[in-house]
């Protein structure tokens, strides 16, 4: 009879004891701790409880992503109707962008991507936790949100599901799960999709809702990305203004378009000390440096307008930051604390090369109109090497200082009596 007065929370606590030691315990515990704090205390030694545990860290990143998700839902509709009816004249954000019609497209197209990404990814995590008998880790929380934001809107859901299974298993679980992975799982998923189903990941049809569906019919619609136009040397064919690019009213992967919201999210992450400002700053510097080099090549007249690289090379160097996925990649992917460099000096090198290589791939490889994910994955692989040399360099510098150090004994006042310290 007292059963009726038990709260949901109490019932879960009782169930927990029931599940202890059983095979499904990790799955139950994950569900339990997702809703409530566990009722257990540690029994041995003194512990300091940090507020910024893994779950808190992940949630902060999710918070920084929510505005981008909402924006992308409106943009999904805006791009669809713009491709259908042409861009509205006298564009006003309130009347043309933040409309229910636009948001509805977002609900029917973007939300399923989020649901599939989380559903499949967490299912894989649960299965692995049950098989390996450890607790479900929170590692997928951020990946699950990043994935729908970096794929084209028309990506079929089953493809996303296949890619998520691949990315979580090959990108993460085989290395030992959360915190042990070499490659960023979200980008592994993106790379898998890109190489497995290239027709769905590039071209001018995939960036708007119904673009693939209507392809080849009289109702065909398309929305080429700015980088796509530039790669074909058609810079004159798009009419996006710089403010369109900055605020994100352009076609592109679901969540990558708004440099403004990404900037806000980046500032939020820097001030909450979740993401490394060193990586962000150096990656921006790297991208600008490469852009300046290309602009310099054009100004010097080394390449002509007939060159296939002309469109992208003559693109103003700073505009590289506000088109394509560069900003999103720098703020949310490059700063991944697991796969990035750990040392401060390493972070500068790592970030700089990400920006530098991203723009280089953009310009030199028209087959990959966006090179950010390749650049970050490449640098993910090199991050441990960079760290290794930074640490070695630090050790040898300090060894040298130690060898050269001159110790003056206290009881003598002559410097001649100083002793040269021998090597250890």
């Amino acid at each position, binding site marked *: 009879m007292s059963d009726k007065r038990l709260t949901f929370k109490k019932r879960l606590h009782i169930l927990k004891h029931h599940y202890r030691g059983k095979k499904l315990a990790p799955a139950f515990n994950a569900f339990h701790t997702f809703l409530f704090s566990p009722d257990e205390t540690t029994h041995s030694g003194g512990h300091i409880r940090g507020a910024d545990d893994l779950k808190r860290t992940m949630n902060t990143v999710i918070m920084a992503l929510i505005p981008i998700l909402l924006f992308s839902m409106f943009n999904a509709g805006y791009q669809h109707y713009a491709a259908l009816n042409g861009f509205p004249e006298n564009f006003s954000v309130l009347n043309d962008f933040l409309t229910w019609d636009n948001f509805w497209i977002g609900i029917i197209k973007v939300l399923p991507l989020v649901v599939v990404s989380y559903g499949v990814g967490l299912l894989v995590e649960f299965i692995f936790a049950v098989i390996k008998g450890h607790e479900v880790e929170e590692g997928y929380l951020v990946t699950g949100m990043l994935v729908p934001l970096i794929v084209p809107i028309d990506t*079929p859901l*089953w*493809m996303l599901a*296949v890619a998520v299974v691949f990315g979580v298993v*090959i990108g993460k679980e*085989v290395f030992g799960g959360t915190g042990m992975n070499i490659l960023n799982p979200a980008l592994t998923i993106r790379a*898998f999709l890109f*190489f*497995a*189903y*290239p*027709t*769905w990941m590039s071209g001018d049809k995939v960036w708007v809702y119904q673009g693939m569906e209507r392809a080849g019919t009289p109702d065909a619609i398309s929305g080429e990305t700015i980088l796509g136009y530039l790669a074909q040397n058609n810079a004159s064919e798009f009419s996006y203004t710089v403010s369109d690019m900055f605020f994100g009213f352009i076609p592109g992967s679901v969540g990558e378009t708004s440099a403004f919201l990404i900037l806000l999210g980046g500032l939020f992450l820097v001030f909450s000390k979740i993401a490394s400002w060193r990586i962000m700053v150096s990656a921006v510097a790297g991208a600008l440096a490469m852009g300046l080099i290309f602009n310099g090549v054009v100004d010097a007249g080394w390449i002509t307008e007939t060159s296939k690289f002309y469109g992208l090379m003559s693109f103003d160097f700073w505009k590289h930051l506000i088109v394509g996925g560069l900003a999103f990649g720098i703020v949310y992917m490059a700063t991944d604390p697991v796969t990035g460099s750990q040392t401060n000096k390493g972070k500068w090198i790592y970030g700089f090369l990400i920006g530098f290589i991203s723009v280089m791939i953009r310009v030199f490889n028209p087959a990959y109109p966006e090179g950010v994910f390749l650049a970050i994955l490449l640098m993910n692989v090199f991050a441990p090497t960079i760290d290794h040399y930074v640490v070695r360099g630090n050790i040898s510098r300090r060894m040298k200082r130690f060898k050269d150090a001159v110790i003056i004994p206290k009881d003598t006042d002559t410097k001649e009596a100083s002793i040269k310290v021998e090597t250890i």
Partner: protein
Amino acid sequence: MALLSKKDTNLILDPLADNNPITIQVLGICSALAITAELKASIVMALSVLFVLGLGNVVISLMRNIIPSKIRIIVQLVVVAALVIIVDQVLKAFAYELSKTLAVFVGLIITNCIIMGRFEAFALGNGVWRSFLDGIGNAAGYGIILIIVGFFRELLGSGTLLGFPVLGNPIEKTGLYSIGYENNGFMLLSPMALIVVGLLIWVQRSRNKALIEEN
């Protein structure tokens, strides 16, 4: 009377699973990654290696007492090169298209670590019949992995098996393709072959814990 003694049976069966040249010894990986995009090429490659390794082991075993130890590697190379040239010429004569698909990898059988490894480790110290069985066994162990990898890569990458469209026609949208299925282009690239081999190793080791090394 059994055709093969228990010891001889193990010479063939061991390399198929618990001492597989690819998944356990991790030898002969290059060709396993390079030519397994099609099942047909995998099968031909497996048969070529079967021929070269089976016969090569016999030849080396026959000569094992007269080969001077100092130049044995050169002798082994001559034997394997001769056999590979025979395979190459036969392929060019009777299956020209296929030999173009396999391209340089037929010639590279010469450098396949499995072959030199078996010559060195087995044929130089064992009798003709046992060397033959060992060669057949190891080549079969190599071939079976090639065929498994080739099966998955061709099925998922091109939707065909041995060239027959088993999943429907991707252009006319029949079969599986009518409900939106698409071929996985990544399967046709070599990195995916590495991942498939890795998954095979994973499956094998989780089924037989004794194979997991201490570290």
